[in-house]
């Protein structure tokens, strides 16, 4: 579903965030990317929908090449790829429903967007997405009035409203408490299973990565250093990925064992 061929990204400042990464993700797979801050996790995820263009190499979604310079093609591709963010990225001053409807923008005529007249079908899709993450009763509440966990579920609903083939999640639990983190991860997992959506999730908590991922990809300083089944990733593997011994800060539940 997603293929990277010798993908590299060098930022204008000269920082090489991704070095020659080749990777192939199957349809409906739940893949977790782990690595320290600055290892290139966010860059890898943003290369899939062209928010960060590759400096060299190729990324494909399905059989379409991601080309950030072809505005029309990249927008069509982004419509198929939902994205969930660490900071939720909701418009706080507007309703939950309006936020979820942002997921329908690519299929909505510009004049409809300008007057705020979404079609019944789009509203229905948005409501279904909210039902899926069990927060539909908040549809007409301002996003700013929700808790962090609720806001993240709205973020997931927005991605679902796109009817995506792929969902990217950039540290979706980083600003949530442990119980809420599990709730959000369970939502993502069930969406992946039930709707056969390919999931690419950045995480820095290793226990979460092992508990929810089918497959774990390890990045260190922009290089792919591990790619294997989640159940095979033991403490030694993570030590290799991180390039240091593990500490209590690397797991969500301190008493939990890896």
């Amino acid at each position: 579903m997603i293929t990277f061929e010798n993908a590299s990204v060098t930022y204008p400042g000269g920082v090489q965030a991704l070095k020659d990464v080749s990777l192939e993700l199957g349809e409906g797979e739940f893949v977790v990317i782990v690595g320290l801050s600055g290892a290139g996790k966010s860059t890898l995820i943003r290369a899939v929908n062209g928010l960060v263009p590759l400096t060299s190499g190729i990324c494909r979604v399905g059989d379409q090449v991601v080309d950030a310079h072809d505005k029309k093609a990249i927008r069509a591709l982004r419509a198929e790829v939902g994205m969930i963010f660490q900071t939720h990225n909701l418009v706080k001053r507007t309703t939950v429903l309006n936020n979820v409807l942002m997921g329908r923008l690519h299929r909505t005529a510009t004049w409809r967007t300008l007057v705020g007249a979404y079609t019944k079908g789009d509203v229905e899709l948005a409501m279904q997405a909210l039902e899926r993450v069990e927060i539909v009763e908040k549809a007409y509440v301002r996003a700013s009035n929700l808790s962090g966990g609720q806001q993240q579920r709205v973020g997931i609903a927005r991605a679902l409203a796109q009817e995506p083939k792929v969902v990217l999640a950039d540290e979706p639990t980083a600003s949530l408490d442990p119980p809420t983190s599990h709730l959000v991860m369970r939502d993502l997992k069930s969406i992946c299973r039930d709707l056969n959506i390919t999931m690419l999730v950045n995480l820095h908590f290793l226990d979460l990565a092992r508990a929810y991922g089918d497959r774990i990809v390890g990045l260190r300083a922009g290089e792919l250093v591990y790619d294997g089944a989640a159940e095979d990733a033991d403490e030694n593997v993570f030590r290799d990925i991180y390039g240091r011994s593990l500490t209590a800060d690397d797991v969500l539940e301190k008493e939990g064992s890896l």
Partner: protein
Amino acid sequence: MSAAPSAPASRPDSARPDKPPPPPFVLWGSLGLIALTLVLGWDWEYGIGFSLRDIYDNLGRHNPVLEGVRNLDWSTLASPTVLAGFAETFQMAAIATILGGIVALPLALLNSVTGAPNTFVYVAVKNFNSFIRAIPDLIYAVFFVAAIGRGALPGVLALFFLSVAVIAKLTSDIVDGIDQGPVESARASGASHTQMVKTAVLPQILPGYTSFALYTFEINLRGSAVLGFVGAGGIGEVFSNYYQRGWYDRLVAVVIGFFVVVFVVDRISIAVRKRLL
């Protein structure tokens, strides 16, 4: 009674640092400003000879305006001319603010890195806005009175340009300060630039924009008092009329009435703006 608190354990290795001197910018900046004021204000070849003595020297002189204050003619406030002047000022300010606000919103959005679709549009609109802003409202009024004659229309046009200038400037300053998160998520969902601006940028700037528009209404009210002197309608025409005829008793009464009106509008607008932000 109780034992004296024991002295903190001495740590000879971590001596307290000396207080650093004030930054040189503050010191030299203040001295520079004082020097500049003296040089420009002193009574010499290149100064304007600024002195408060003239005020004292003229205190005893016959002053018709002060005479007016002593014999205020409150009945003027109820005269049809004055009431019509106030009404016209309100109408001019309202029309100019509403139309100016509508035109200023796209200009404000395009005058920002986030809102402009490309650098060319950004630079072009920025220069256009600077141009509109560079011309004072009085000059607009003089120009439009010359072009289309005396009356409320040239006044409305002058206040319209003033509104566009003020609202576009203040609003565009907040566009680039918004939370970029929603902008990224709109882009990630495949939205076009216009759709992104409408759904991710507009809701964030709307409170500020509305507040600036209300503030501009007050500016326009005050502005109309001056524009009447060049023939651009409103209560200013009444001011100008009474001033030229030397009817200071009426003039001062109307000025005080105007002051009260502006003060009340200002209070209301502050209350409304507080709820917005």
